[in-house]
């Protein structure tokens, strides 16, 4: 990989209760991976597979028990590391982030992070307004509103703006759309994609929702019992439904459907990954088979 923004080498993490020998649990074993700058990757795996433990290393919330993690040039857990600088570079949006909103106005909430960075007033203001516009909450309309009066999807985007206002180079999203309805989810995806394109930020997504992963990520890491079980391009990984099932995962429904068609003998190339592609292909296949049947019946006559 040319330009890796996150590199882990033999990362192992053991949760350990103090003074309690047997009460330790290996959450990550020898995980080595690289995440390319500017990409959107997803980390998938069943509950307890180590996803959250892994991403908590990316912004220094956890330090490796052994092995190393380097994030944007900073070695996590080494002595003298400036954790504040690390957390500003790797911004994390936790699950149900709207629960962390607390200010009286949207503006104050988004400004909280930049204020802690001790930026100039003007700079803070510029960042807040830009972040609000980026997440689709035009500042003229939303900056002075009470965050608690917004819809669930809007609140979540306020929380996202709060992270963006810190100008992170990496955005870590832990189950970002859980609990949002379909409309709220679609909007969230649209803004994320725009942020990625305009800001060149690297996105690390942790998700259970395979349709979400398919919509956003270009590269997948599959974790199983704390180990990196598989990695690859999204479409390549999702074409391995059998393997995914052994790890308790399933490909998105459309990939499942295509897998059954393949098993049934239809010639469906691996590149087919979207609804449009599948629709066009099936229409083409039907035309071919109709022609084929035509010749068949003629020869049988």
């Amino acid at each position: 990989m040319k330009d890796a923004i996150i590199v882990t080498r033999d990362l192992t993490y053991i949760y350990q209760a103090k003074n309690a020998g047997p009460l330790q649990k290996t959450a990550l074993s020898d995980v080595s991976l690289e995440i390319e700058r500017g990409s959107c990757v997803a980390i998938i795996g069943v509950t307890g597979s180590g996803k959250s433990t892994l991403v908590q290393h990316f912004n220094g919330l956890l330090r490796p028990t052994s092995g190393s993690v380097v994030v944007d040039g900073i070695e996590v857990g080494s002595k003298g590391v400036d954790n504040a600088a690390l957390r500003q570079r790797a911004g994390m949006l936790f699950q149900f982030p709207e629960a962390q909103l607390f200010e009286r106005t949207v503006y104050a909430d988004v400004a909280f992070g930049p204020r802690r960075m001790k930026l100039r007033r003007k700079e803070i203001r510029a960042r807040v307004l830009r972040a609000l516009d980026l997440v689709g909450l035009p500042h003229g309309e939303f900056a002075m509103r009470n965050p608690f009066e917004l819809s669930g999807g809007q609140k979540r985007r306020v929380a996202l703006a709060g992270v963006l206002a810190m100008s992170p180079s990496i955005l870590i999203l832990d189950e970002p759309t859980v609990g949002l309805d379909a409309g709220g989810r679609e909007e969230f995806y649209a803004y994320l994609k725009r942020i990625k394109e305009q800001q060149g930020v690297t996105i690390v997504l942790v998700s259970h929702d395979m349709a979400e992963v398919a919509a956003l990520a270009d590269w997948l890491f599959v974790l199983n019992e704390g180990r990196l079980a598989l990695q690859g391009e999204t479409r390549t990984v999702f074409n391995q439904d059998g393997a995914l099932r052994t790890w308790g995962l399933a490909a998105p429904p459309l990939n499942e459907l295509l897998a059954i068609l393949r098993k049934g003998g239809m010639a469906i190339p691996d590149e087919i990954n979207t609804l449009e592609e599948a629709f066009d292909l099936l229409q083409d296949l039907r035309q071919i088979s109709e022609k084929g049947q035509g010749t068949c019946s003629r020869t049988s006559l």
Partner: protein
Amino acid sequence: MEQIALIDLQHIIYSYPDQQGESEPIALALNDVSLQVQQGEYLVLLGHNGSGKSTLARHCNALLIPTGGHALIAGRDSAERSNWRTIRDTVGMIFQNPDNQIIATVVEDDVAWALTVRGLPVRVIEERVAWAMQAVGIMHLRGLPPNKLSGGQRQRLAIAGVLALRPQCIIADEATAQLDPLSRQDIVELLHQLNRDYGLTIIQLTHLLEEAALAQRIVVMEQGKIVMEGPPPQVFSDLERLRALRLAIPEPIELAARLRNAGFRISTGALTVETIAQEILH
């Protein structure tokens, strides 16, 4: 003679009590909803967050009492406090997070808990607990502490605890929302199996269309009202309307609809990945 509905909700109106004493009028959570559920039916209540489906479900076992209208469960009016015990024994409920209803430190004791509280004879308790564990497939886990169970297994345990009370109906309120995709399918299959094998009435609440495909009837809610109702093929025939109700259309179903419009012979009854695939193949 027409069968009396197990659950008969008549013109239910409900508004949540004003908690902060604010002067603004609060929108009605349920606005004149009538719904009958027959014994042995498998019903899916579909709707996005805040559509009113949970509020409606809580009227089916007297967790909420209507502000207006009547809720009759097995013929008993929930407005009468003396009916509550019978109503709640008739209609059991499981929720998103099974941990909220797991109490004991061993699986078997947890299933027995509600029966013990009711002071039933030990022999009856043992028999019912064994039956309930068998029915949901957790017999082999009987001696384990619940925290050793996976999310899917804990949800099964919660179902067993309700089942042991021998209800006629179980309401599952987004009972799969916190589970992995595969455990999710497992729980939905289990609910169907209980419906088939024991004639248990099931009311399943979800915002996922793919979980509604195998229901006998779907009721779609929006802003405290029932806006669509019918067997799955009928409800799924109007994808535009479902989308407008902020529900996500599963891609295989969208694909099937588009292929049908393009002249493929795919029946409207094909609503699962498996059946759609088989119809495309033929």
